[in-house]
């Protein structure tokens, strides 16, 4: 069994705002082992980015309250001081942000930004750090890294900027790489390159990856385990095969059905999840997906727990519906030809 790097137990994150308390994350748990890829999927506002940033200690602030545990190799990251957190950040956990345009400083050279990251964490001289930067840029597939290292971000294309971000995240050899929608701002061709790069680097650096996205299709070939988040909760969790071939939560069906698919005939209409995600200040009672769920019934006014309801161990969901009912009805939603969409 591979080394367990991360264990998140019942993590809750709340922010106090002028409008009220935002329950951004309400009790999520997962584990991550070395060499594995964990996919976190959900719409905007489902709490997936807050989860990632909390792991990195980036949501700390006077208005933030945390509960639960984030155990990294046994140390609770929520209890670590801000100063010590800096040692974990970069050295142990690296992060790739969504928008490579705004997360690089436009007035510093790419190389200098990576050198700075290396020197912040390790006691090396500038020349060594620069040599390592060039090597990193080569590893992430930047052509002519010796000259490119002195370019400014605006001289890089979107895909190259994202590669530079990945090089920076890897600069101190972290055990866990957190990628927060790393491909959303990119073209499909570049997206394919980045996904492939992330999975190759995972091998090269012997690390684990948390891959956050709103598009289940993106992680179909690289994730080992997938968590589906909705309204700050995990609503379904299981292996990649469970999620794609035996999805139990109507929300997961909706996410699958929304993707225009090339492997199936073109449907008359795409399936949509009606409405939008609930406000995290004023959550609905019972199942949080109930207002948008086409299959909701009386029992849904009580919130279902995250439990194993199918034969496969480890496949958890939050839905009261009967498993056989779900298995016979979900294809309507997923293949997009449902009569009820009209």
């Amino acid at each position, binding site marked *: 069994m591979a080394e367990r790097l991360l264990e998140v137990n019942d993590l809750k994150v709340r922010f106090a705002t002028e409008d009220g308390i935002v329950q951004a994350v309400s009790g999520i748990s997962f584990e991550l082992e070395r060499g594995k890829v964990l996919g976190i999927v959900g*719409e*905007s506002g489902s709490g997936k980015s807050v989860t990632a940033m909390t792991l990195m200690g980036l949501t700390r602030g006077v208005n933030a309250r945390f509960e639960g545990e984030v155990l990294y190799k046994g140390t609770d990251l929520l209890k670590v001081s801000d100063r010590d957190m800096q040692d974990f950040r970069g050295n142990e956990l690296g992060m790739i942000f969504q928008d490579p345009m705004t997360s690089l400083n436009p007035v510093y050279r790419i190389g200098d930004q990576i050198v700075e990251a290396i020197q912040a964490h390790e006691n090396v001289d500038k020349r060594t750090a620069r040599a390592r930067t060039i090597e990193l840029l080569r590893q992430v597939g930047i*052509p002519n890294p010796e000259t490119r290292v002195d370019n400014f971000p605006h001289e890089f*294309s*979107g*895909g*190259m900027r994202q590669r530079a971000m990945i090089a920076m995240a890897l600069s101190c050899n972290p055990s866990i790489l957190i990628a927060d929608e790393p491909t959303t701002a990119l*073209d*499909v*061709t*570049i*997206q*394919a*390159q980045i996904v*492939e790069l992330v999975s190759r680097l995972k091998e090269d650096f012997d690390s684990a990856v948390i891959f956050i996205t*709103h*598009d*289940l*299709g*993106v992680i*179909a*070939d690289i994730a080992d385990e997938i968590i589906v988040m909705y309204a700050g909760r995990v609503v379904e969790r299981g292996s*990649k*095969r469970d999620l*794609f071939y035996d999805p139990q939560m109507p929300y997961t069906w*909706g*996410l*699958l*059905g*929304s*993707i*225009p*698919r*090339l*492997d199936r005939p*073109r449907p008359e*209409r*795409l*399936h*949509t*999840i*009606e409405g*939008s995600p609930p406000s995290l200040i004023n959550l609905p009672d019972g199942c949080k997906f109930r207002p948008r769920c086409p299959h909701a019934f009386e029992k849904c006014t009580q919130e279902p727990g995250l439990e194993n309801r199918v034969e496969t161990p480890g496949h958890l969901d939050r839905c009261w519906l009967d498993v056989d009912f779900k298995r016979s009805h979900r294809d309507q939603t997923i293949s997009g030809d449902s009569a009820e969409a009209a």
Partner: protein
Amino acid sequence: MTVLEHASESDGSALLEVRHVKKYFPIRKGVLQREVAHVHAVDDVSFAVREGETLGLVGESGCGKSTLGRTLVRLLEPTAGEIVFQGTPIQDLGPRRLRPLRREMQMVFQDPYASLNPRKRVGTIVSDPMRIHDLGSRADQKRRVGEILETVGLSPEHYNRFPHEFSGGQRQRIGIARALALRPKLIIADEPVSALDVSIQSQMLNLLDDLQNEFQLTYIFIAHDLGVVRHVSDRIAVMYLGKIVELSPAEELYTRPIMPYTEALLSAVPLPDPDLAEQRERIVLEGDVPSPINPPSGCRFHPRCRYATDVCRQIEPPLVDYGNAHLAACHHPLNVDKATLQQVEVAKQHSPAEADDSALPQDTSGRSNPAVAPDTRSR
């Protein structure tokens, strides 16, 4: 047969015809601001859009698809070529004569955050086009805004709200409402869904579909994702570095791509099925789109193409008809049987019009590649 002949011979009349349109951006240097080079953003593009159809325009960032979209509605001035809208050439019209035509052609922009004025209320944003074109009384305008907001799935009570009060998907609906305000015939949608979550994306695609049926709209739908485009398009044009490299009826492009670039784009679309995703051969295109300042010689795709040979480096392939209104520009066409290939070869030798289509632009980039005579195109 050229692209344009195709459009005119088809049953529906062409709403928009684009003939050899080029858009170059000058690069200026020095005190005198001398033009030292040009960005060949759109380089000799021809196609036609029939009334009521949706033409998908697909390509990577930097291929010129957005520039083309903007040039078509004259938000950018074309460097050369003709744009014929409803029989009127519009490329040289002055502002006063252009204005009534602007009512017929509207745009929906990519970024729903940047394309709405944050200091204007939704009602003003949607009614502004009507005010500018002086349509109806104020009361009429207000009533119409209410109607349009309802059509796009918002409520008339949103009239007095500001854009920041809306989510990304709702903002895109406001952008669509604004485009619809003048009851246009043609809507150019520039990546209308790429900034949205997949679940919201599908809502938006269905909405665009409904609106097309309700108002008999014609769309030019620009996107980088072939999955999205398939869902809305009747025909699809694939662009690469300022040129159309393949133009085909929508479904055929997916079952029978001819241009290797299209094949690669298709293989990059994520498949939400782990087994299929593992099985299929993923053609990862190395590197980025080359600089449009000095496009590669010959076929512009050759540096990234896995089938490229010497011919591709030297001779630019013309856009050729492979039957069933499926055109492609490639020396090594995929999925084409021998008989068709021979016919195409014969047609090439006898049609001098092709030379005209593939003639290289007389640009300032210093390449001395003379227009290719048809008989040198041996394989």
